């Protein structure tokens, strides 16, 4: 493990920002710390950087305990959410700042800064001031400034939060490519699951100061470890009374279930050729156009589900009676989740999605 946190606890007044947090990160990986706001993800990042001190627990970087090493000696590059570019220095001086502190000679500094400016594609703008740059350009400068002193670990706090939606998409792929080209171990914080899934090699999900789950995006999506993760990832609706649905039996102590839109198929009467016995009857409540598909809300026995339907298929109307086939759902209690398949479908052909 290159970066390791062991039993980290941190409290601000009466707010528990980190509650016995432990995890490890391999060298060279790009990690996304994902969680809702207030879940303690930024605190974890700031503690790794040394901007905050844990109340208890140990932080290791490259095998060395760094709790007592000041932030400036940890060899970390940090990209702030607001970028914190030095407003009274131009692009060149911003990037050169860390190198000047290391007392590199002038030639060396100039070479390295120009190399980085080339890397981030801002040649010719080295004498602009931060307020003369666009949001995306500022982020690139912040990235270059953090990389300049050759850190072993790069930390990014909500790197895309301050950028408008259009540029954000472009910057995501840019950042992912940059980081893999430089080959530096990186951790970034985000509250946007799409961002985490798209950019990160591995995702750590935080919730109320704890780490709920760590794994590859696909793993987390397919096997949510906790009820929170199951709800947080994907677009989920909660089912209070799942055992009343066809094909699902009550599991001991598991009172609630979560269904994702992709777990449900909505079919016009007569459209379903098999599994009819495994389907429920429902009424369409509302239909919304979501760009590349339709979001359909149906009511089944007094419970509401959200599903999607392809635009290619025959259209349905609000108030229409439809067949609702539920392939699977997650059942959960306080701290466990299980994937439950529709039993009634097993009688026929193998599962398909």
């Amino acid at each position, binding site marked *: 493990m290159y970066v390791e946190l062991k039993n980290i606890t941190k409290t601000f007044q009466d707010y528990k920002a980190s509650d016995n947090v432990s995890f490890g990160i391999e060298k060279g990986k790009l990690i996304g710390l994902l969680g809702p706001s207030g879940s303690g993800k930024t605190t974890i990042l700031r503690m790794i*950087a*040394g*901007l905050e001190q844990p109340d208890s627990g140990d932080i290791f970087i490259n095998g060395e305990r760094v709790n007592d090493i000041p*932030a*400036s*000696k940890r060899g*970390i590059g*940090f990209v*702030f959410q*607001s970028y*914190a*570019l*030095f*407003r*009274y*220095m131009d692009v060149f001086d911003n990037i050169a*700042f*860390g190198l000047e*502190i*290391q007392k590199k000679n002038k030639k060396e500094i100039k070479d390295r800064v120009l190399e980085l400016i080339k890397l981030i594609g801002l040649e010719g703008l080295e004498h602009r*001031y931060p*307020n003369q740059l666009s949001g995306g350009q500022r982020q690139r400068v912040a990235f270059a*400034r953090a990389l300049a*002193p050759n850190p072993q670990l790069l930390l990014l706090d909500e790197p895309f939060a301050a950028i408008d939606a259009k540029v954000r998409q472009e910057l995501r792929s840019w950042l992912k490519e940059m980081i893999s080209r430089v080959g530096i171990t990186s951790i970034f914080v985000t509250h946007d699951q799409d961002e985490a899934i798209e950019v990160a090699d591995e995702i750590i999900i935080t919730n109320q100061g704890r780490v709920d789950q760590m794994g590859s995006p696909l793993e987390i999506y397919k096997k949510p470890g906790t009820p929170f993760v199951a709800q947080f990832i994907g677009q989920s609706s909660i089912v209070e009374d799942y055992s009343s649905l066809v094909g699902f039996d009550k599991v001991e102590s598991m009172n609630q279930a979560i269904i994702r839109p992709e777990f449900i198929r909505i079919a016009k009467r007569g459209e379903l050729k098999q599994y009819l016995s495994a389907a429920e009857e429902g009424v369409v409540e509302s239909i919304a156009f979501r760009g590349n598909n339709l979001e359909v809300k149906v009511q089944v026995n007094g419970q509401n589900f959200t599903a999607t339907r392809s635009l290619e298929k025959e259209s349905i109307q609000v108030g229409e009676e439809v067949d609702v086939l539920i392939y699977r759902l997650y059942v959960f209690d306080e701290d466990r989740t299980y994937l439950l398949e529709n039993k009634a479908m097993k009688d026929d052909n193998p599962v398909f999605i």
Partner: protein
Amino acid sequence: MSIKQDSVDLKKGAKITKTVLITVSLLFVIIMLVIPMLILIVYAFKDGFTKYIEAITDTYTIKALRLTIIATITAVAINTFFGLFAAWAVTKFYFKGKQLLLTLIDIPFAVSPVIAGLIFILTFGRIGWAHGFLEAHDIQIVFAVPGVIIATIFVTFPFISREIIPVLNAQGKDEEEAAALMGASGFRIFRKITLPHMKWALLYGIVLCSARAMGEFGAVSVLSGHLRGKTNTLPLHVEIIYNEFKLSAAFAVSSILVVLAVIILILRNIVEYKAKKGGR
């Protein structure tokens, strides 16, 4: 009446309001601020130009001017030193009791100058608890130059920190954290990152502080003991000659202070203008 007529009426009404309000403002400023200035100049030259020169080149006037300048420079230097450290402590760190500290810094604003003088009499004067110590070491503060300087420092104490603190608060501490993370020393962070942000606010504070310091009357009056040529500042000197019914001389000496005040006002406006322009 048509809608058009209505809006014309409205505009006419607004124009009348504008004219009335501007006239009221001008009258107020002229009567309250401009005429007192004018009368000062007229009275200063009442007994002729030679008398004027005589009054402002009087030995005691020169000595008083010198003391005023010394007290002002000392107060500005000490309060700048304090203001920079206080602003750094208050805006870059979190600690308990910050609000209390800010209130304590502001106390001299709320205290009458006469009371400001009184507290130093009660501390260093004959009945003061520090008197024994001062006497043993042969230090004189009350009715001496140090007293004048201390009084000036007290009344202008919050001027500079109060100008810088809001500016640094608005700036946040991200930039300083970023620099500290790269290993920059405190002095380097201050000089390269914080100082450029607050330089205009600092200058503005220095200008205000100088204005108040050179004009301070009440507190200095309590502590100086009015020893002509020794502990008299320029405003105190004005009082003395005024009370001797040398009206024209009093106004002549005042005119020196007016010139200084006008210079300060001009500087203030330049600084404000530059700060607005340079606020990128």
